[in-house]
């Protein structure tokens, strides 16, 4: 009896400790598709994800800045990641979403084609960014290796940095 009890207690103990250990080197990401590729950003840098709403064009800015929109009383810039990555922009579909990301002192909405899923990936599965990527230069934090595909993990601070 006491053996069994011990076993249970031990098992519970293990369960308590294990996720803790895991958490240390596991990165939680949100994956999304732009064009053909899957990208991801850390879940903690996302303020919210909303369906497309109307935005107002802002004059004399690069074409990847679509404009500004009203997020419950705040005026927030809207950036088209397709154009930012030098892809042709497409018409919004049912799956199009705005990901509102929050950095140190900036908040912006990013247009993406489709969300995929919340991803947990081990730190050691993330490799450095390849040097060949031009359009996304400086924006890539690393490449996440997954069983079925690879992820481009983006640097949120870099995305939110004004570069014009």
């Amino acid at each position, binding site marked *: 009896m006491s053996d069994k009890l011990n076993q249970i207690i031990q098992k519970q103990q293990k369960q308590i400790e294990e996720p803790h250990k895991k958490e240390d080197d596991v990165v939680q990401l949100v994956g999304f598709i732009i064009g053909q590729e899957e990208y991801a950003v850390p879940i903690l840098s996302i303020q919210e994800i909303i369906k497309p709403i109307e935005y107002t064009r802002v*004059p004399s800015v690069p074409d990847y800045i679509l404009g500004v929109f*009203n997020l419950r*009383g705040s*005026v927030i*810039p809207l950036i088209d990641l397709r154009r930012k990555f030098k892809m042709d922009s497409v018409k919004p579909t049912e799956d199009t979403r705005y990901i509102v990301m929050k950095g140190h*002192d900036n908040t912006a909405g990013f247009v993406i084609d489709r969300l995929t899923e919340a991803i947990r990936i081990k730190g050691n599965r993330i490799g450095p960014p390849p040097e060949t990527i031009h359009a996304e230069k400086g924006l890539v934090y690393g490449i996440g290796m997954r069983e079925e595909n690879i992820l481009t993990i983006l640097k949120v601070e870099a995305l*939110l940095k004004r570069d014009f």
Partner: protein
Amino acid sequence: MEDIQEILEDFLVEAFELIEQLDQNLVELESNPDDLELLNSIFRVAHTIKGSSSFLNFDVLTGLTHHMEDVLNKARHGEVKLSHEVMDVVLESIDMMKSLLHAIRDNGNDTSIGIDITDICRHLDIISNGDEVSAPVAPAQMDPVETPMDEDNVDYSKLSDKEVEEEIERLLKMRKEEDRQRKSQATVSTPVSTNAASSVQEDKNEEEEPKVAAASVKRAAPESSTPAKKDASSSMEQTIRVEVKRLDHLMNLIGELVLGKNRLLKIYDDVEERYEGEKFLEELNQVVSSISLVTTDLQIAVMKTRMLPIAKVFNKFPRMVRDLSRELGKQIELEISGEETELDKSIVEEIGDPLVHIIRNSCDHGIEDVATRRAKGKPETGLIQLKAYNEGNNIVIEITDDGKGLDPDLLRSKAIEKGMITEREADGMSDKEAYALIFKPSLSTAKVVTNVSGRGVGMDVVKTNIEKLNGIIDVDSELGHGTVIRLKIPLTLAIIQALLVGAQEEYYAIPLASVLETVRIPLDEIYTIEGKNVLRLRDEVLSLVRLSDIFGVKQVYEGGEHTYVVVIGLAESKLGVVVDTLVGQEEIVIKSLGDYLQGIEGIAGATIRGDGRVTLIVDVAALMNLAKGINVDIRASAETVVKTKTVPSDYVVLVVDDSAMDRNIMKKSMEPIGVKTIEASNGQEALNMIKSSEQSIDAVLIDIEMPRMDGYTLAGEIRKYSKYKNLPLIAVTSRTSKSDRLRGVESGMSEYITKPYSPEYLESVVRKNIKL
């Protein structure tokens, strides 16, 4: 420790206020040396500062005030005559007091910046000992000395305890003396006191009567005459000091509330349309109007908490003018009125510098020296008037001098000389435009560069600062008689009145403070001169620019024969902005675009409108700059058709019906015309297709009864876009009653076809509407 900190803060706030008062009173005293009341109040102020600073162990400050107090005390008893020279020394010691106080504020003590007070104390002593001051103290002595004057400090700290005791003793003595004096005054010095009293009364009652004493600082506004002020300070209103940050936060919250209110009003309008005559509408109306009323009141109340009287800025000018007139060897009188006019704190802070520059200019270039004035038959003393008053949502500050005025020809030739304008431009310049040249950087008409002005920087600063506040500058001058500079500044910065305009499908808000007028003109009144569009408006020639060209708005529809021009004015320049629609005046809350989009040229910020959309606010100053770089012939481009369609297959007709069969019938009927048809199965789908404007649609056939969005709603939504104002909307329905037809017309349908119809009829209606 915290207690001390608190006391120190209170001391500083109080001391700065007192010193400001001291400055003012002293200048007034100089021209009115017999005003014992004034002298007494000055003495009291000096004494209070001394008392508090010795309590807080600021020995240098205490020492300085002590010496000054001696002089003032002697003056009170008539032992020292307050000549201009004496005044110079006293004022200088006040300047030093200010620097000491600044040092205390910044460093927490008055020793570390090493201000040397020995010289000035000596001078003060000399005066109080009855000797004449031979020469004014050189300003160099005010400069901080590199090595801290330790010996001095030691001296004072040693003295301080003793001094405090002495002080108490002296105070007692003084009180007695004062009492005695008061008694004697009643009998002996009656002429003096009645004199002072009578001049006070005149100040209060009749402004026109000549002043008994030749005060160099006259207070034209009766409420603000000095005695009245003293009354106010004695029965001081209860106040509470609040951090500006908290007020700002409050202001932000109010901003949100105003947006909410606007939104509510908009929703109410929509609801009113739909449920006309329903009972609950009445109640809703009451709630909406009471909320909007309260919000407006609340907004005004909070704005008022941020308001400061402009006296805060004006008060330093008597001293400045006095110093300048001594320095320049001119006689200048400064007359201030309307200093009780209130302005937002942030504006009060910004307005100081421009005024300093304008007044310095008036003193230096405007007012002539005594000899010249005499020769011209003007009174020897020059007059500068500084006046503030409210005008609607703006405050107007007027600076008038009776000096030599501006010479428009001289300005023109100077500007040509410096290559700022061409000779041709100069010829076409009105006098008023020539006056505006004074605001250009590096243009100065002063023959000599003095310490005061003439470098051609000042007025440029005025212009940029006033523009920053969305203000307008107006210059008027008469050669030989003087100049009037009028600054018109909005009362507050956070919530403003704006004119909403439409440029094609986009809307922009123009701060109403910068809008001078709006006019509707026929296109053929626009002329082109050297590639620039101009409009003759009454006796002025106004350059025109289209808002769509400045902001690169996509041209989606043609304007009519007429267009709207919004005449904007900023500082001293004017511009006509051509817009496609005028939406109206609205109260808007300025929101920043955030760091990411900061500093876009031409955009000052954004606001959220009643319908939740973001509207950009135009930066009028930048707009005027941008306008210079645009060369589009407005008339020519308005006349070219946006898109040309030639063959029937270029035309697109949208068929909206939930029944596929009905859609097919309609398509079949239109086949003979040869137009392209596209389909939508409900109102929502159709609206999205129209909104996306992938295809330019030339006509829409609409069924009335459809899921998700019916035909009436669809028509109403389409008509909300000004570019679809004239798009033919043809209702095709089996609803035949008169009221249905009426509703169709109301919602914006252009034709009404009842089912069943013959294919030929439909065909002919479509042909007629797309003009094929």
